[in-house]
C-alpha cells in the first residue's frame, strides 16, 4: 500500500458511490466509511517512521518537459493532517449515509463527499506544487457541488456560486503565485523548494509570489474580507458543514501557509500580513458570531474566528506560536466537527436550527447533550480537554510575540471570552431552559448520527488527559515540519500557577458573566452592528456581480449593436488607422509617379475611370450607377490590354458583362430609389472610403517603388516553353506551375454551385 493509493481509492469510491448507493440502502454510509478508515489506519501505521524523522515520498512522472511530477510527500505535518481528514472523514461518511436518507440523489452526494475527501487528502500529502493545485481546485469543485446540494433553492445556488467564485479567484491567484515561486528553483517539487528559502527570498519575485499565494490561502480559509462565503455556505447539508467547513477545506489555506512557512516565512512582510489579517479575522469572526441565532451560522462565524487565530499564529512564527497552531488545529477540528454534526442532529430531531426556538432538549437526548457539552468545554478551553492546552499555548504565544503584544493579547482575550460565552449559550439555551412547543416530539439521535460526535469528543478528552503520552508524539513532528528550527514543546495539562493560567481563569469568568447578561450583550451588539457594521459582505458581493452584469450588458450592446453598416465601418476605420500607422512609422513616403512616361491614351482611360467612379457615387439613378461601374470595369480591362495581359482583360470583360446583366435584372425587383442617409452620414462614409482607398494606393505605389528581389515570374518566362511545353505563360501557370491553386479555385466554384442549388431547393420547398 502506498500513500497515493489511498487518494486513488477514494476517487474510485467517488465514482462507485452514485452507482451502488441504491443497492446498499441504509448500509451505504457504513460500507463507504471503510475506505477512509482503512486510509486512517494506514497513515497511523506510518507514524513511527515519521517520528523517526523520515519523510515518505513517491513520484510518478507526469509532464516531463517541465519537470512536473505527480508526487507525494508525507512528513509529520502531512501525516497529522491526513489523520484529521481521514479520521473525521470516516465518521462523516457514516453520519452522512444516515443523515441524507430522506433526500433524493444521496448516491451523488456521497460520491462528491468521497471526491472531496480524496482531494483534501491529496492536498495534504502532495509533494509537488502542481499536484497540490490540482487537488486544491478539486476541493473547490466538489465543495461547489456539495454546497449546492439543495440546488432547486435559489439561495443554495447563490451560496455555491459565491463560494466557488471566491475560492476560484483564490485558486487563480494561487497558480500564479506557484508559477512565480517555482521560477528560481526550476522545479515544482516541495522537497527542493522547502529546503532553500534563500532562493526565493533574495529574488524580486518574492513579494508578488507571496501576495498571490496569500490571496489563494486567505480566500480558501475565509480570511477577512473574503470571510463571507463561509457563513453563506451553511446552505449546505450538515454533513458538509461538519466536514468541509470545520475541519478540512477551510483549513486548506492554513495548511498551505504552514506548509510553505519554511520557504516563505520569516520575513517582516510575511509576519505583518499574516498577523494583521489573522487578528482581524479572529476578532471580526468572534464579534459577528455573538448575535447569530442559527446554530450553524454561530458555528460558521466561530470557525472564521478560529481560522483567523491559526493564520495569526503561523504569522507570529515563534516557538510557542507554531506549537499552538498545530495543537489548536487539531483541537478545533475535533470540537467543531462534533458541534456541526450535533447541530445537524438537533435540526433533524426538532425541525429547527434557530437557537431562540430551542430549549429543554436534555431530557430527550441526554447522551447527545453530554457529548455536545464536552465539545463545548473544549471550545471554551476548560480542562481536562485538549482545548484547554490549545488555549494555554495561544496565550503563551501572545505573551512571547515579538511585537504588538498588548494588542494581540487583548484580541485573543476578547475572542476567547466570546467562545466561552457561546459555549454556555449553545449548551444551556439548547438543552436547558424552557421548552418551546416542538412540531414533533424530539427523539434521541440514532447510532449513526451520534457515533461520530462521540468519538471525536472522546479523542479530545483522551488527548487532553494524556498530553505527554499521546498528543505529543502525534504533533511534535508536525511542528518540526513547518518550522524546522524550533523545538516541539512537550505538552502538559498543568503548567503551574502562572500568568497564563490566571488569564484563562479570567476568560472563563468573563465569558460566564457575559452569558449571565446576554440580553444586555445582544442589545449593545445589535446597536453597534447597526451603527458601525452595517456592511453585509455577501450582499455587497451579489450587488457587485449584478452591476458588473449590467455594465457588461451595456458594453455588449455598444459593441455588438447589430448594425451591419457600423460593423463594416469599424473594420474599415480600424484597418486604415493601423495601416496608416505602419506607413507613418516607416521612412517618409516616396511616391514615384512619373506622369511623363504615361502614354496619352492610358491617361484618357484613367480620367474616364475616375469620372465614371464619381458619377457612380453621385448619381441618383441606379441604372446610371451600374453603367458607370461597367465603364470602370472595362476601363481596367483596357489597362490590362495595354500591359499585354490579354487573358486577364478577356476574363475581366466577361465578368463585368455578366455582372452588369445580372445586376440589371435584379434592378427590376427593387423598390423605387430613395435617399435614406443624410449629408453628414454621407460625408462620413466618404471619409472612410477615402481613408481605405488612400492607404491602398500608397501601399501599391510603395510596392512598385521599393523592389527588393527578383520576381519568380522570370522563371516562368524561361521555363514555360522549354519545360512545361506551353506558349501561353498564363495558361501554363494556371495548369502546371500553380495547378494546385486552380484545383482549389475550381472547388470553390463547385461549392458555390452546390450552395446555389441548395438555396433554390429550400426556397422551392418553402413555396410549396
Amino acid at each position: 500500500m502506498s500513500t497515493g493509493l489511498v487518494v486513488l481509492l477514494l476517487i474510485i469510491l467517488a465514482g462507485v458511490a452514485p452507482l451502488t448507493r441504491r443497492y446498499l440502502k441504509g448500509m451505504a454510509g457504513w460500507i463507504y466509511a471503510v475506505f477512509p478508515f482503512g486510509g486512517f489506519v494506514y497513515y497511523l501505521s506510518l507514524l513511527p517512521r515519521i517520528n523517526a524523522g523520515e519523510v515518505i515520498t513517491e513520484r510518478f512522472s507526469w509532464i516531463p518537459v517541465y519537470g512536473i511530477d505527480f508526487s507525494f510527500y508525507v512528513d509529520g505535518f502531512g501525516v497529522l493532517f491526513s489523520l484529521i481528514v481521514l479520521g473525521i472523514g470516516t465518521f462523516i461518511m457514516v453520519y452522512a449515509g444516515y443523515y441524507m436518507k430522506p433526500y433524493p440523489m444521496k448516491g451523488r452526494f456521497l460520491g462528491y463527499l468521497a471526491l472531496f475527501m480524496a482531494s483534501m487528502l491529496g492536498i495534504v500529502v502532495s509533494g509537488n506544487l502542481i499536484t497540490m493545485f490540482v487537488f486544491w481546485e478539486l476541493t473547490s469543485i466538489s465543495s461547489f457541488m456539495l454546497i449546492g446540494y439543495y440546488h432547486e433553492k435559489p439561495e443554495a445556488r447563490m451560496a455555491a456560486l459565491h463560494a466557488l467564485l471566491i475560492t476560484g479567484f483564490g485558486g487563480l491567484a494561487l497558480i500564479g503565485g506557484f508559477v512565480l515561486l517555482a521560477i528560481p528553483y526550476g522545479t515544482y517539487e516541495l522537497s527542493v523548494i522547502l529546503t532553500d528559502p534563500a532562493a526565493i527570498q533574495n529574488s524580486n519575485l518574492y513579494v508578488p509570489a507571496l501576495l498571490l499565494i496569500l490571496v489563494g490561502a486567505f480566500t480558501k480559509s475565509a480570511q477577512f474580507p473574503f470571510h463571507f462565503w463561509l457563513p453563506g455556505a451553511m446552505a449546505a447539508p450538515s454533513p458538509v458543514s461538519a466536514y468541509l467547513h470545520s475541519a478540512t477545506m477551510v483549513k486548506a489555506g492554513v495548511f498551505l501557509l504552514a506548509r510553505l512557512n519554511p520557504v516563505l516565512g520569516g520575513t517582516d512582510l510575511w509576519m505583518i500580513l499574516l498577523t494583521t489579517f489573522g487578528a482581524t479575522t479572529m476578532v471580526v469572526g468572534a464579534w459577528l458570531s455573538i448575535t447569530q441565532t442559527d446554530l450553524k451560522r454561530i458555528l460558521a462565524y466561530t470557525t472564521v474566528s478560529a481560522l483567523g487565530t491559526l493564520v495569526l499564529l503561523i504569522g507570529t512564527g515563534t516557538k510557542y506560536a507554531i506549537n499552538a497552531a498545530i495543537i489548536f488545529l487539531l483541537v478545533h477540528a475535533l470540537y467543531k466537527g462534533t458541534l456541526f454534526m450535533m447541530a445537524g442532529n438537533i435540526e433533524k430531531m426538532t425541525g429547527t436550527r434557530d437557537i431562540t426556538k430551542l430549549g429543554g432538549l436534555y431530557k430527550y437526548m441526554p447522551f447527545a447533550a453530554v457529548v455536545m457539552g464536552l465539545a463545548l468545554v473544549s471550545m471554551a478551553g476548560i480542562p481536562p480537554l485538549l482545548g484547554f492546552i490549545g488555549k494555554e499555548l495561544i496565550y503563551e504565544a501572545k505573551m512571547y510575540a515579538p511585537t504588538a503584544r498588548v494588542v494581540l493579547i487583548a484580541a485573543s482575550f476578547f475572542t476567547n471570552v466570546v467562545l466561552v460565552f457561546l459555549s454556555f449559550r449553545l449548551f444551556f439555551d439548547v438543552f436547558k431552559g424552557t421548552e418551546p412547543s416542538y412540531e414533533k416530539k424530539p427523539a434521541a439521535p440514532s447510532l449513526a448520527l451520534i457515533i461520530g460526535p462521540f468519538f471525536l469528543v472522546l479523542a479530545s478528552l483522551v488527548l487532553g488527559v494524556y498530553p505527554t503520552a499521546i498528543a505529543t508524539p502525534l504533533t511534535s513532528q508536525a511542528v518540526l515540519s513547518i518550522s524546522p528550527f524550533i523545538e516541539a514543546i512537550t505538552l502538559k495539562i498543568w503548567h503551574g500557577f502562572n500568568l497564563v493560567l490566571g488569564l484563562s481563569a479570567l476568560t472563563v469568568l468573563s465569558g460566564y458573566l457575559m452569558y449571565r447578561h446576554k440580553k444586555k450583550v445582544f442589545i449593545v451588539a445589535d446597536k453597534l452592528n447597526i451603527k458601525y457594521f452595517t456592511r453585509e459582505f455577501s450582499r455587497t458581493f451579489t450587488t457587485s456581480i449584478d452591476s458588473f452584469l449590467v455594465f457588461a450588458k451595456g458594453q455588449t450592446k455598444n459593441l455588438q449593436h447589430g448594425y451591419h453598416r457600423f460593423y463594416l465601418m469599424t473594420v474599415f476605420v480600424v484597418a486604415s488607422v493601423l495601416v496608416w500607422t505602419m506607413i507613418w512609422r516607416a521612412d517618409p513616403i516616396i511616391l514615384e509617379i512619373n506622369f511623363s512616361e504615361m502614354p496619352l491614351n492610358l491617361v484618357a482611360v484613367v480620367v474616364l475611370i475616375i469620372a465614371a467612379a464619381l458619377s457612380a457615387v453621385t448619381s441618383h439613378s441606379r441604372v446610371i450607377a451600374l453603367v458607370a461601374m461597367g465603364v470602370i470595369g472595362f476601363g481596367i480591362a483596357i489597362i490590362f490590354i495595354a500591359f499585354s495581359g490579354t487573358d486577364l482583360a478577356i476574363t475581366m470583360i466577361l465578368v463585368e458583362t455578366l455582372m452588369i446583366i445580372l445586376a440589371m435584372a435584379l434592378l427590376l425587383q427593387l423598390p423605387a430609389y430613395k435617399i435614406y442617409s443624410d449629408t453628414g452620414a454621407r460625408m462620413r462614409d466618404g471619409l472612410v472610403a477615402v481613408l481605405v482607398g488612400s492607404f491602398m494606393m500608397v501601399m501599391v505605389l510603395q510596392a512598385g517603388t521599393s523592389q527588393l528581389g527578383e520576381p519568380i515570374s522570370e522563371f516562368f518566362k524561361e521555363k514555360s516553353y522549354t519545360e512545361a511545353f506551353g506558349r501561353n505563360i498564363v495558361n501554363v501557370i494556371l495548369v502546371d506551375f500553380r495547378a494546385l491553386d486552380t484545383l482549389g479555385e475550381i472547388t470553390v466554384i463547385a461549392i458555390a454551385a452546390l450552395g446555389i442549388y441548395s438555396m433554390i431547393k429550400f426556397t422551392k420547398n418553402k413555396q410549396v
Partner: protein
Amino acid sequence: MLIAPILLPLLSMVILIFTRRWLVFQQTFSLLATIMLTVISLTLLLDINTNGIITIQMGSWPAPYGITLIGDLLASIMLLTTSFVAIVVMIYSPGFIDRERQTAGYYPLVFGLLMGVNGAFLTGDIFNLYVWYEVMLTSSFVLIALGGSAEQLRGSVKYVTISFVASIFFVSAIGIIYGQTGTLNMADLAYKMRTWDDMPYINSGLMLFFIAFSIKSALFPFFFWLPASYHTPPVAITALFAGTLTKVGIYTMIRFFSLFVVQDVVFWKTFLLVIAGLTMSIGVMMAASQFDIRKILSFHIISQVGYMVMGLAIFTVNSVAAAIYFTVHNMLSKTNTFLAGGLVYQRSGSYDLKYLGGLYKTMPFLAILFFVPAMSLAGIPPLPGFFGKFFLIKGGFEAGQYVITAVAILVGLFTLFSMIKIWNEAYWKKEPDDMPEPGPVSKGTLVATALLAAAVVALGVFAGPVMEVCHAAALQVTSPEVYIEAVLGN
C-alpha cells in the same frame, strides 16, 4: 502522403455531391472518410515527430517557383485535431440535423470545408493559402446559410460581407508583398527577409495580413461577424466552425509571425499583446451578459482566441507551446460544449436559459457531458483547460510579461462565472413550468458528445505526452530556419 489530407476530402466531396439523396450512404461514408482522415493525420504526425518536417513540391517544380506543401509538427497537430473533431461531428449530425438539410449538400460541404482547412494547414505558399481560405470560406458561407431560415440569412449576410472584406485585404496584401519581394513561397520569402538589411514598408504589408487574419480569428475589434452569425445554424455546424475556423486564422498568424516578423519585433509583440488582452477581456465580458447558451459560448470563442494570441505574442518556446496546447484544448472543449448545448436543445427545445432547468435531476449523464468541457474551459484541473492556462501563465511570467498574464488570470474567473451561469440555470434551477415538451435525445448525439468529452479528459490526463509534442512543435515554430531549410535546402 502530404497531399492526402487535401485529396481525401476532395474525393469525398465529389462522391457525396453525386449521392446526395442516399442519406444512409452519405452518413456512413462521411464517418468513414473522417476516420480515414484521422488515421492519415495521425500517421503524418508520428512520421514528422520521428523524421522531421516533410515537404513536397507540387508538379515537381522546384521550391520558390512551384507550390510547396509542407508538414511540420504544428500543422500535423492541427490536422489531427481537426479531423478528430470532424469524426465527432459526423457521428453527431445524423441525429441532430434535419433530413432536408442533410440531403441538401450538408455532407459534401463539410468535406469542402475540411479540404480548405487542411490545405491552409499544409501549404507553404502565400497565394495557395489564399485559395484554401476561399475553399474553406465558401463552404462555410453555404453551411451557415444552409436551410435558409430568416435568422440564418440575417447572420450569414454579416458573416459573408465581413469575411469578404478580410479576403480583399488578404489578397491585396499578397499582391503588394509579391510586388515588393517577387516571391510567394513562404520559406523563400522568410529566407529573403532575413537577408535584406533594409525592407522599407514591409511592415505595412504585414499589417494588412494581420488585419485579414484577425478578422478570421475574430480578434478585437474585428469579431462582430462571429456573435452575429454563429448561433444561427444548427448547432452541429456551429460546433464544427467553433472547432476549426477561427483556429485556422490563429494557425496562420502563428506561421506568419514565426516566418515574417523580422523587422520591428518589439513593436509587433507589444501590439499583439495589447490586442490579445483586449480580445480576451472584452470577449469574456460580453459572454457574461448573455442568456442564450449558443451566444455565451460564441462570445467565449473570442475570449479564448485572445489566449492563443497571447502565447504567440510572448513568443518564447514555452509560450508558443502553451498557445498550441491551448488551441488543441479549445478545439476539443469548445466543440464539446456546443454539442452538449445541442443535447440540451434536443431535450428541452430551447437554448435560452430562461426557459431551461432541472436537467441535473432528470438527465445526470447529460449534465456530466456538459460539466466536463465547461469546467475545462473554465480552467479546472485536471482538465486540459487548466493546463492550457497554466502553461500560458508559466510562459508569461517566465518571460516577464506580468500585465498580460495578470489579465489572463483574471479573465479565467469570469469564464468560470459564465460556465457556472449555464450550469446553475439549465441544470440546477427547478424546471420552469412553461418549459416546452421534453423531446428524445438521439443516441448518435449522445455517443458523439461522450466521445469528445472522453477525449477532453484524456487530453488533460495525458497532458505530459501531448505537451511534449506541442513543445517540439513550438521549437520548430520559434526557430524558422528549420522550416526554411526543409523547403529550400541549405
